[in-house]
């Protein structure tokens, strides 16, 4: 069997039986966004928008390079975006604009944080966080 045969027969996630390293038992607590991402997966599954098998297929479809370079939840959120584009639920342009909005909100918020006396914005509204609202 040549090396390329193996690539055809095994999708990137199909790793049962392959040689690998010793187990590293180190663990980490989830970042807040990772936990939100996990909750999002559960809610999408509940609403039958993206189920577990679709999620796994979406992660597989990222391909070996992305799978190798992105962390677990990074792969999930990119896979969700791709699946939602494919299902025409979201538009890539809308996501791009929304991400720019979210980032701008963050920078505004962080700038306001540096002035601890500021509790309201120019419109007199209380300063919120930029998007961790659930």
């Amino acid at each position, binding site marked *: 069997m040549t090396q390329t045969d193996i690539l055809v027969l095994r999708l990137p996630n199909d790793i049962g039986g392959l040689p690998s390293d010793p*187990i590293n038992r180190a663990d*980490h607590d989830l970042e807040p966004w990772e*936990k939100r991402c996990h909750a999002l997966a559960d809610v999408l599954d509940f609403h039958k928008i993206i189920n577990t098998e679709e999620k796994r297929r979406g992660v597989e479809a990222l391909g070996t390079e992305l799978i190798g370079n992105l962390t677990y*939840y990074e792969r999930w959120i990119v896979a969700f975006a791709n699946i939602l584009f494919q299902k025409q639920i979201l538009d890539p342009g809308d996501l791009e604009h929304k991400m720019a909005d979210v980032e701008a909100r963050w920078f505004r918020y962080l700038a306001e944080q540096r002035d601890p006396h500021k509790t309201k914005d120019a419109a007199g509204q209380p300063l919120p966080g930029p*998007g961790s*609202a*659930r």
Partner: protein
Amino acid sequence: MAEAEHHKHNHDHDHPHAEIGETGAPGYYDIMETAVRELLIERKLIRADEIRRQIEVIDSRTPALGAKIVARAWVDPAFKARLLTDGRGACEELGISFYDDTGLIVLENTPDVHNLIVCTLCSCYPRPVLGLPPDWYKLKPYRARAVYEPRAVLAEFGTIIPQNVEIRVSDSTAMVRYLVLPKRPEGTDDYSEEQLAALVTRDAMIGVVPITLEGGVVQ
């Protein structure tokens, strides 16, 4: 985007600001998650309160739930029989609901059989009764090797299974999850159910370690 509209999304947020201070500016994927979530909420496909609620559910599921199930099975043979026949139904008897459509199969360790669970393709795990899986369960070394060299994998956890004991490795799926019912350790005949539950660890319910009398902390 109008200020008023953006505030409408954020007025009822309840995350502590300290969380933002510690982490500084968010990364690319953090921003992506927020953007995807907000777009889906705007399109009324999901609701913000559903995400909040699911985070609470995720936080509420820990190995203590699995430990309670194991301890009950150890003291109540009829419950154990029901657990081994209908894992999900027996959990629901103890008030442990499932928030998804997954099934649960409970695998009993005996003097002749030692069970180990894995998900070779991704990270399927009995989250309703154990909470979130550890990183090692989701990474390649365990997923690749557990199915063909379980004794070597177990040895890395300090667990030696005698050669006359059969090791069964169960590969979890999107629809069916597994939980190991570890052997009750010797010397616990006079333990209360609570004391028994306190011995049961997450890793024992995955099958990578046995229950010992020293194990007190539910991981």
